[in-house]
C-alpha cells in the first residue's frame, strides 16, 4: 500500500515537473528548426514568426543558447491531421511567459509585421505573421492588458484576408473574441465584422438586398450602442435605405420609396452633428442634404434637375 502510494506521488511529481518544463512560447523572427542544436545540423523546417511552440529543453552550445521545441504543423488538407515536429531553435528570438515584457514584445512585433504588410514592397507573408503573433499574445498571455485587443486584431486580419481573397468566411475566431472578452469594444468590433456575412455582395438592382443589409446594420447598432462602430453601422443602414428609396422611386412605387426615404433621414439624423461620431457625423450630414434634395444615391445619375 505504502509502496503504491509512494509510486503515485513520484509519478505525480514527475508529471508536474514535465508540465513546468514544457513551457509555451513563440518566436519573433523566422528561423530554421534543426535536428540538433547546431546551424550545420539537418534543417527540418522553417518556423515562421508567431508560431506556437512548446519548449522541451534548453542548452548552451558554443556560448549560443538553444531550445528544443515541438511545433504543431497543420496537415496539407482539412482531412489530414496535424503532426508534431520536434527540433532545435536558436533561443534568442524565442519569447516565452518568463521573458520580461513578453506580451509587449510579441505585440510590438505583430504591429511591426502589420505595418510591413501595409507597405508597398513589404515583407512577404507579413500579414500572416501579424495574424499569428497577435493570436499568440491572446493565447500565451491571457491576463495581459493587450490580450483582448490582440485577439481581436488577429481575428480581424484573418477575416479581412479571407474577404480579399474571396475565401469562405470562418467566424470562429471572431466568436472567440466575443466569448472570451464579452462587453468590450473588441467584442463589439468583432460583432461588426460578422455583419459582413449577412451582406449580399451584388444587389442586382433590387431593393431586397440593401433593405436586408440596412436591417442587419441597424440591428447591430441597437445591440451595440457603445460600439466604436455605432456611427458606421447607422450610416451604412441609412445610406442603404436611401438606395432602397431610389430603387422604389425608379420602379414607381412611391409609397415604399417615401417610407424608405423617411427611415433613411431618421437614421442619418441620429449621427449627423454628433462630434463623437467623427467622420460619420459629416458623412451623415452630406447624406441628409442629398436625401433632402432628392439627389440619387443609386444607379445612373440624373442628367439634370
Amino acid at each position, binding site marked *: 500500500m505504502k509502496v503504491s502510494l509512494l509510486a503515485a506521488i513520484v509519478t505525480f511529481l514527475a508529471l508536474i515537473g514535465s508540465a513546468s518544463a514544457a513551457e509555451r512560447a513563440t518566436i519573433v523572427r523566422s528561423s530554421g528548426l534543426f535536428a540538433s542544436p547546431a546551424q550545420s545540423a539537418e534543417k527540418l523546417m522553417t518556423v515562421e514568426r508567431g508560431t506556437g511552440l512548446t519548449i522541451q529543453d534548453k542548452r548552451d552550445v558554443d556560448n549560443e543558447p538553444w531550445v528544443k521545441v515541438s511545433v504543431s504543423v497543420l496537415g496539407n488538407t482539412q482531412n489530414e491531421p496535424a503532426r508534431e515536429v520536434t527540433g532545435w531553435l536558436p533561443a534568442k528570438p524565442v519569447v516565452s511567459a518568463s521573458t520580461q515584457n513578453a506580451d509587449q514584445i510579441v505585440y*510590438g512585433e505583430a504591429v511591426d509585421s502589420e505595418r510591413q504588410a501595409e*507597405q508597398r514592397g513589404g515583407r512577404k507573408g507579413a500579414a500572416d505573421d501579424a495574424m499569428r503573433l497577435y493570436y499568440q499574445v491572446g493565447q500565451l498571455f491571457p491576463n495581459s492588458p493587450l490580450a483582448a485587443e490582440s485577439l481581436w486584431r488577429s481575428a480581424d486580419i484573418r477575416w479581412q484576408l479571407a474577404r480579399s481573397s474571396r475565401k469562405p468566411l470562418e467566424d470562429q475566431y471572431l466568436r472567440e473574441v466575443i466569448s472570451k472578452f464579452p462587453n468590450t469594444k473588441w467584442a463589439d468590433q468583432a460583432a461588426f465584422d460578422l455583419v459582413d456575412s449577412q451582406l449580399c455582395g451584388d444587389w442586382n438592382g433590387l431593393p431586397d438586398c440593401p433593405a436586408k443589409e440596412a436591417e442587419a446594420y441597424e440591428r447591430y447598432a441597437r445591440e451595440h450602442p457603445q460600439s466604436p462602430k455605432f456611427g458606421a453601422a447607422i450610416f451604412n443602414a441609412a445610406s442603404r435605405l436611401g438606395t432602397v428609396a431610389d430603387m422604389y422611386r425608379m420602379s414607381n412605387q412611391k409609397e415604399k420609396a417615401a417610407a424608405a426615404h423617411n427611415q433613411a433621414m431618421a437614421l442619418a439624423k441620429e449621427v449627423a452633428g454628433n462630434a463623437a461620431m467623427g467622420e460619420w457625423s459629416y458623412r451623415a450630414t452630406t447624406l441628409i442634404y442629398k436625401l433632402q434634395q432628392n439627389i440619387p444615391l443609386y444607379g445612373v445619375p*440624373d442628367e439634370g434637375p
Partner: protein
Amino acid sequence: MKARKRLIATAILTLSFGVSLRSALAQAQVNDKQHGTVIGNAIMYVSPDLNSAKVARPSRGRDTWLMGQSSIDGKEWAHIMVTMSQNTFSAPRTVTGWTDARLVITSATPNGDQIIFGEAVQAEHEADNGVKDADQEAMRLYYRIYEYFPDSPLAAESLWHAADYQWQLEKSGVFARPSAREISPDARQEIDEETMHKLIKKFPRTKWADLAAYDLLDNKICGSWKGETRCPEKEADLYEHYAHEHPQSPKAAEALYKAAWRQAALVDMYKGKERDKGEKAKRRAMDIAQEISAKYPEGDWKPRAAQLVFALQQGLEVTTESERQSGKQN
C-alpha cells in the same frame, strides 16, 4: 464692412431696374456668397435644358462660381463657371454652363462646410477602394472648405487633408524616380512645401501644423542609405528633434520610434567594424525606447519600443539588407 457696402450698392442698383428690395437683397447675397464646388456627377449644359448641348462634366471639388440660378418647371438650375484642368501641358481653363443646382454647394449653403467635408470623406473611402481619381477629388473638396469656409471649425483640418494628399501624391512620384536612390536629398526633386508652410502659418500650434511639420521631414531624409552610417545618424537626429519640438504632436511617438529604429539599424551597420560606435548607438536606441515607454504609454508605440529593446538585448538584426539599402522602412 466691404461686403456690406457691396450688398447695399447691389441692392440700390437692382432697385433702379424696378425689382423689389427683397429680391435685390437676395440677389446681392448670392453675389456675395457665390463661390463653392460641386459634390456629385454634375453635367454642364449650354442652357438650362437637358436637351441642350453638354459642355463639361466637372468632377467633385472643382472651383465653382455660382453666377445665377433659374427655376424652370419647378426644377432648379445653376449657372456656373468652373475651373477645369486639362492636362499636364495646358493651363487650366474656365467653362461656363448650366447644371443641377442641387449639386452646387457654396458658402451660402447651410452646413456647406460639413456637406463638402462629408463628401470628401466619401471620396477618400472610394479612393481606398480603388475608384479612379477619387483621391484627387477628395484633395480638391478639402481645399474648397479651407478656401470658402475660412471660419469653419473644419477649415484647419481640411487644409491639412488637402495638403497631405498633395504631399503624398507628389512624394510617391518623387521617390519612384532613380534620383531617389541617391544618398543626398538634394539629388532628387523637392516636394512642394508651399501648402504645408501656408498651413503652419495660418494655423500655428495646432495638431494640423504639427502634422505638416512632420511631413516636411520627407524632404530632408536620404534617398537611400547605401550602407552609409551618416544617413541613419542624420535621420535619427531629425526625428528626435521633431519629437522634442512637437511633444503634443500625434506623430511625436512615431518620430521617436523612427529615431530609435535608426539607432538600432546603426548597431547592425557597425557590427564587426566599429564596436564603440555600435555600443553608443545601442545605448542611444535603448534610451529613446525608454523615453517612448515613459512619455507615450498608450497606443502601439510602447510595445514597438519594447520589441526593439528585446531585439537589441538579444542581438537580433532589426533590419534586412534591403531595408538598410532603402532606408525608408519604419
